[in-house]
């Protein structure tokens, strides 16, 4: 019983220890506030700039969720298409790999040219960043159905559609959820990149402004808020994952994960 609580609390304990260390080091060495604010100064900045931070982070969250949501819908559809059809896989996959290799920062100015700077730019960048891992994982789950199992079903007269519905989709759910946990954090990265590069409203832009004003505590406050939001979203998907695909942690499935 005691061990379970210790296990649950351990990441929190580490966080608190790191914050205390941060405070002690900055204060102890007398580091200038403009270079590296202490933990207390950074947390105070969160309070001090709470209105601006709240507005910006809600905008970022909004853009992230829109981009992520679209990526889930299209990623799953594309993943199914690639996973069940070898011609589609052979045709589309190399192009997707090539596109995924492009540093997304360089895409943002082009997006600004096409759709302007704003929420839409952040959302599209979030979408671009998290689309790929969703597609890959969904496709892997479908493409790696045990051949014996396919034979069992085909020998019963099952159509390809039956195999996908009865086996393929449920089987790829753990892969999908594993990718969603990665994708949601990548979506945040995408949204913030767009805000920083294009100056679209949001927490990325807030940090850009703080930087030009030499308001270092506010920059650190921004970082803390982004990390907290991304971790929170990750937690939600981790919870959904264990809720819906708890069976997989007992099975012997290997997850392929990809990042952008």
């Amino acid at each position, binding site marked *: 019983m005691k061990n379970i609580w210790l296990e649950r609390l351990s990441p929190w304990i580490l966080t608190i220890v790191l914050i205390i260390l941060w405070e002690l080091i900055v204060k102890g060495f007398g580091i200038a506030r403009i270079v590296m604010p202490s933990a207390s100064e950074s947390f105070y900045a969160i309070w001090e700039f709470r209105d601006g931070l709240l507005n910006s982070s809600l905008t970022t969250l909004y853009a992230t969720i829109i981009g992520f949501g679209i990526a889930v819908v299209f990623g799953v559809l594309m993943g199914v298409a690639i996973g069940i059809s*070898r011609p589609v896989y052979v045709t589309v996959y190399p192009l997707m790999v090539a596109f995924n290799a492009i540093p997304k920062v360089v895409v943002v100015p082009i997006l600004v040219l096409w759709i302007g700077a704003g929420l839409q730019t952040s959302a599209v960048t979030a979408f671009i960043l998290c689309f790929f891992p969703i597609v890959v994982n969904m496709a892997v789950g479908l493409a790696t159905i*045990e*051949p*014996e*199992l396919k*034979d*069992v*079903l*085909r*020998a*019963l*007269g*099952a159509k390809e559609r*039956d195999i996908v519905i*009865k*086996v393929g989709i*449920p*089987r790829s*759910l753990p892969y999908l959820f594993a990718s969603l946990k990665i994708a949601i954090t990548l979506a945040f990265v995408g949204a913030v990149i767009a805000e920083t590069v294009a100056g679209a409203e949001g927490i990325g832009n807030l940090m850009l402004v703080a930087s030009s004003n030499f308001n270092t505590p506010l920059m650190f406050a921004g970082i803390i808020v982004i990390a907290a939001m991304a971790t929170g979203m990750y937690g939600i998907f981790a919870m959904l994952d264990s809720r819906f*695909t708890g*069976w*997989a942690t*007992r*099975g012997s499935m290997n997850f392929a994960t990809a990042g952008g």
Partner: protein
Amino acid sequence: MAFIEIEDVDLVYRNSFGHEVSDGTLALSGTNLTMERGEFIALVGPSGCGKSTLLKVVSGLIRANKGKVTVAGETVTDPLKIVGMAFQNASLLPWRSTRENVLLPMEIVEPHRQRFRSEKAHYEELADKLLATVGLEGFGDRAPWQLSGGMQQRAQLCRALVHEPDLLLLDEPFGALDAFTREELWDVLQALYNDRKCTVMLVTHDLREAVYLADTVYVMSARPGKVILDKKIDMPRPRKLEDLYSRDIADLIQELRHHINVARTDD
């Protein structure tokens, strides 16, 4: 006319994607085999001789390059619709309970497919009865990973038989089990066979298993595989494990072993 007729079948070896390899290596060459309805046969032979491939050809999952395969009077061109299959790997679906795994064929095969939703209670009862006959009474609600290897194979046999197939194809279903569990499952399979009298093709590496279960044992040559010997097993059913240790049967197993050794070293 015999229930299954395999005439002069050639098959080019395929890779894991199902593409024929370019050098045209034959997996089967001039294979002939006939079996009657309700017969239980076993295929033995050196590894890689195309035993499993022959099963797939009979079920229509792979088409022969040459020759003719007839099942129940009809030439096989597409996958047959009412075959039960079981493999060395139980391949049960981990997100379904054992009962739901057993019922998987009912969600696909007509006419059960139409009735499955409306008569679910009836089908669940059927699955539980079948599970009970293989010694898995009360295990229907368990997840597959909560079952031992032997129990998973019992469940797999239920899945292969639940829709009362005319033809049961078994590809080394007991290959991964320990010796005691294997012998236990021989009797489970024998009881199911005596009860249902379906036609069974069993691929195995185990000569004792082949002799114990089958009416006829077919020995295949090394690749490219073809049937080089068939041996009727005159043991009355139901058979008992002690029978395997009688002089005649021991000699028979010795003889089969000799033929396989010759087939292995021939090329």
